[in-house]
């Protein structure tokens, strides 16, 4: 396994299969949180953090427990429980040991349990990366690389969109399009732009 493979996985997850614009995961925070650049950065930092840990843990559980014991059908229920407990544990650790980090990410952590991007990436790793005869460490590396790329792509889009949003607020939008509709149109145009990257890798 060479490094290029991991780099490809990161770039592909970040730009080409962008989590918001191409896979439609995490639309709620995209429309809701990204009103200010600072909260957009906080949210995407929290998502990146939890996404990397969650995909490592879920991949491990699937490869080392669910598959050997022949019970892949409980993956959904196991994954959501793992992610939910992870979020709680991360919150405890931040509360105890890193007050500054908790201050910046704290309010976004409870929102993350029901953020479909996290569960979506964990499930996507199993369907896209996992194969029965792939060595554990290779698969884990690819899963983590995908999670890093997805988290970065999420942050990129949410940050870019929050900057556009600040402009939108001061521009003269027709009343019928104000708010969510014009945001969706902006997202559609961004999605068209990103569609041009399909097939690069």
């Amino acid at each position, binding site marked *: 396994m060479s490094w290029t493979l991991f780099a490809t996985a990161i770039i592909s997850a970040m730009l080409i299969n962008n989590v918001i614009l191409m*896979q439609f995961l995490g639309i709620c925070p995209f429309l809701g949180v990204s009103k200010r650049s600072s909260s957009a950065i906080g949210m995407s930092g929290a998502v990146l953090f939890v996404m990397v840990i969650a995909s490592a843990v879920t991949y491990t559980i699937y490869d080392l427990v669910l598959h050997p014991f022949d019970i892949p059908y409980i993956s*959904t229920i196991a994954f959501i429980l793992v992610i*939910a407990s992870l979020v709680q544990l991360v919150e405890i650790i931040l509360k105890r040991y890193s007050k500054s980090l908790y201050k910046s990410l704290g309010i976004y952590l409870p929102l993350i349990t029901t953020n*479909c991007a996290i*569960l979506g990436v964990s499930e996507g790793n199993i369907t896209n990366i996992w194969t029965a005869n792939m060595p554990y460490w290779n698969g884990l590396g690819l899963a983590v690389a995908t999670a890093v790329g997805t988290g970065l792509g999420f942050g990129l889009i949410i940050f870019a969109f929050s900057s556009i949003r600040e402009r939108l607020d001061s521009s003269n939008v027709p009343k019928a399009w104000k708010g*969510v509709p014009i945001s969706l149109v902006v997202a559609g145009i961004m999605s068209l732009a990103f569609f041009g990257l399909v097939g690069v890798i």
Partner: protein
Amino acid sequence: MGVKDKVIKVIKVSNKENFLKGFVKENPIFVFLLGMCPALAVTSTFETSLGMGLLVVFVLTSSNIVISLIRNYIPNDVRTPSYIVVIATFVTIVRMFTERYSPDLYTALGVFLPLIVVNCLILGRAEAYASKNKVLDSAIDGLGMGLGFTFALVVIGIMREFLATGGIMYGNYLPFLVDAPIYLFNFDWIINGFVYLLNLIPFISFTTNGFTISDYSLAMFSLPPGAFISLAIILAGIQFKKVRKEEKLAAEKKAFIAEKKRIALEKKKAAALKKVGEN
């Protein structure tokens, strides 16, 4: 105590109202913008939207029933975790059934089938309704809200599929009732019918020259950008209606106030005239 009772005064609604509220008044997608991820992702065709909607109806109704049944036995502290476990169980059941009976739909929905677990609508209904109401009410609420969600998905799905292909197909993903995929609607039918009617007029013969609507369809609408734009168009239409209603109300209010002012002014004038006359 008395104040609190007043605040939590529950307005009793009939079963029919409870069922119908999810379609227009409290539509999860169009009004509350809940569950936007599946609304954008699985609506590229009419059939996938219908399939997804029906799965959500099943999960929502059964999870509402179970949560309403166990609502008095769950300690308040572990409420949310228990709801997540119940919902995840039903999603696993649904996933197995779909994989067995409609494998094409299973592949088409992909990751969004397990993602029903984190659908805002289901957890939201569990917390806001099923945890406080009786079993029958919760079941009706779940059914109504789920069907409202399905309705919204199907509207988006029909719009996108029609713009992208020029017709509506059935039978590719849901292999029930039909043996082979059929067209529920095709714009070519209208064109052909029109041409046929024209040819009924004597001395006119007209052909379509191999024209089909699919040559002129916008394939973008079956792709991700089209999803955003079609949902934006629908939401803007709804907002346009709302804005116009508000403007109408505001204009009526303004007219009412102006009328009152005018009457007051006239009275004043009359009084002044009277005074002048007396003098």
